């Protein structure tokens, strides 16, 4: 269990403001946030590169706030690998065990084991400069894992890789997590990594944690305009809520899952809205009618802008789009369950 308790750190350019998180044993915890949100300095503070200005860090019931990095047993992997260029892959992986003055035979065995886990056994004699990006990152992960760390920190580990390598290494990360049960904290901008890997997610903005939850909670039940916008809630409206579960946006009344009185923000994911040319049966759904304004093809997804009194964005798969058979100017019906319409207090900072 890793507990970050009210940690603040000001490095001038980047800062942490009163960050509190707790990460369970063997949990895969992802931190999302825009550039400059303070994600890397949070990891570096956990690793012990910086001491916090205030707050405490507790790892497995031990207060490590003032423990130097070398004695924390926390592994760190950066986006750009940071493999020691003057050492071979084998020496890189064995670097930490050598610091611990382990027996050379023991180091050799452990390095082999770790290299096998990452499928880089055939590269052990090579120097990092001769490896591909994916191979370098595997080496960096092996170098951290061979120490059997109490927590493994991954700072955008897949961001520098090409799409294909990224996907295969993402699968590897899931497999390694499964096999070793290591507690992992992983920073990313990439939503696929969140859904594929994360048990829980924290969203950071300007040095603060805004929301913590399961991927589904973060993506469907944002607690603030910032999170809603960041996770791609394209239908974001402000309206007036009522305890009965109706939000009034301009003249439209939308039934939502969670009633709350007063001014609220309302968020609906574009892929949660059904679009049809004929009016669907109500069955407890929200049904709106409107006119198609724009159709944009983006890879496998078609994004349709509909003016239903409010500007709505709907995402359809290519097949769904062909079945719907709509084009600009067509009259269409939008339908969605109250459960996908999420209301939260307006503002950028989150309710907590």
């Amino acid at each position, binding site marked *: 269990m890793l507990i970050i308790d009210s940690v603040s750190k000001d490095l001038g350019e980047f800062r942490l403001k009163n960050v509190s998180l707790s990460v369970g044993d063997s949990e895969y915890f992802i931190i999302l946030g825009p550039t400059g949100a303070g994600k890397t300095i949070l990891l570096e503070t956990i690793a012990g590169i910086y001491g916090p200005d205030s707050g405490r860090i507790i790892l497995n019931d031990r207060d490590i706030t003032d423990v130097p990095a*070398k004695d924390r047993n*926390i592994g*760190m992997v*950066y986006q*750009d690998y940071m493999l*020691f260029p003057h050492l071979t892959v084998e020496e890189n992986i064995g*670097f*930490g065990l050598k610091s611990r003055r382990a027996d050379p035979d023991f180091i050799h065995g452990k390095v082999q084991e770790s290299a096998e886990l990452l499928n880089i056994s055939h590269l052990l004699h090579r120097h990092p400069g001769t490896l591909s990006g994916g191979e370098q990152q595997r080496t960096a992960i092996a170098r*951290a894992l061979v120490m059997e760390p109490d927590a493994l920190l991954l700072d955008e580990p897949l961001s520098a890789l090409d799409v294909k390598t990224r996907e295969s290494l993402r699968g590897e990360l899931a497999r390694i997590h499964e096999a070793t049960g290591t507690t992992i904290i992983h920073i990313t901008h990439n939503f696929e990594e969140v859904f594929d890997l994360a048990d829980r997610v924290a969203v950071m903005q300007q040095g603060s944690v805004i929301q913590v939850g399961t991927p589904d909670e973060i993506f469907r039940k944002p607690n603030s305009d910032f999170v809603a916008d960041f996770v791609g809630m394209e239908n974001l409206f402000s309206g007036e809520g009522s305890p009965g579960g109706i939000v009034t946006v301009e003249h439209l009344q939308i039934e939502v899952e969670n009633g709350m009185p007063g001014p609220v923000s309302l968020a609906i994911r574009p892929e949660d809205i059904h679009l049809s040319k004929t009016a669907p049966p109500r069955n407890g759904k929200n049904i709106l009618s409107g006119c198609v304004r724009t159709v944009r093809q983006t890879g496998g997804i078609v994004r349709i802008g509909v003016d239903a009194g409010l500007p709505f964005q709907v995402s359809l798969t290519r097949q769904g789009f062909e079945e719907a058979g709509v084009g600009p100017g067509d009259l269409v019906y939008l339908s969605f369950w109250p459960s996908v319409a999420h209301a939260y207090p307006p503002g950028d900072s989150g309710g907590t």
Partner: protein
Amino acid sequence: MKRRNASRFKAATVVVSLLIAAFIVLVLLGVVTHSPLDVFIECLLSEEIQFAIRLSILTSVISTLFCILVAVPVAYALARYTFPGKFLMNMVMDIPMALPPLVAGVGLLLFFGVSPMGKSLAAMGLTFVFTPLGIIMAQFFVNLPYMLRVARSTFQNVNPRYENVAKTLGCTDAQAFWRVTLPMSWNGLLAGAVITWSKGIGEFGAALMLAGATRMKTETLPLSLFLNMSTGKLEVGISAATILILISIVSLYVFERYGGSTHAY
């Protein structure tokens, strides 16, 4: 029309470059080819030049070692840490490089000759004025900034995240430096050492002031060149100059060869 202008411009710049390059080569060739080979070899084998070569190599190697010893920690501090007075310190460290060597020499002469500290050093047996020790001191003082600047930029080119990773892998600050930063800086430091050594072996002004120009006592190659040219022994002076030219060219080559690769990381 436009094209012709561009090519004329190109031609003009290239011609100037060629002329200057030719000028430099001619000047150096003039020195090297001045004396016939047998005279040159005879001078080389003369006791005086032999002495100058030995003294030059000895003093420059020692002063370079001291420069490395001092520059590595100082450059690391300036590259990695923030502390009060850092900006000023950076400037102060560079002053000896900007100073005319004669002025540096006068300063050193006064410091070691008449200041209480210099006198107490002399009392302890460390006499710098008019001794070979003074040559080492003069070379050290004037050339430290070269080593320092190269070392500083070398360390700055090593991403501190390498050290961060090393620390999470069980290293203290000092071990991270020793096991990661230093080996990664090897080429840069080597290049810096070579340029410092080559500046040291050619050091004249400051050494002349502090150590004087005593034949067969503080006579390094540049001092030998100066003494023999001023006493009309042209051939001996030129043989010293030829050696200095060869040393410069070789060091420049080594510097370019290894200095350039410091940016690889």
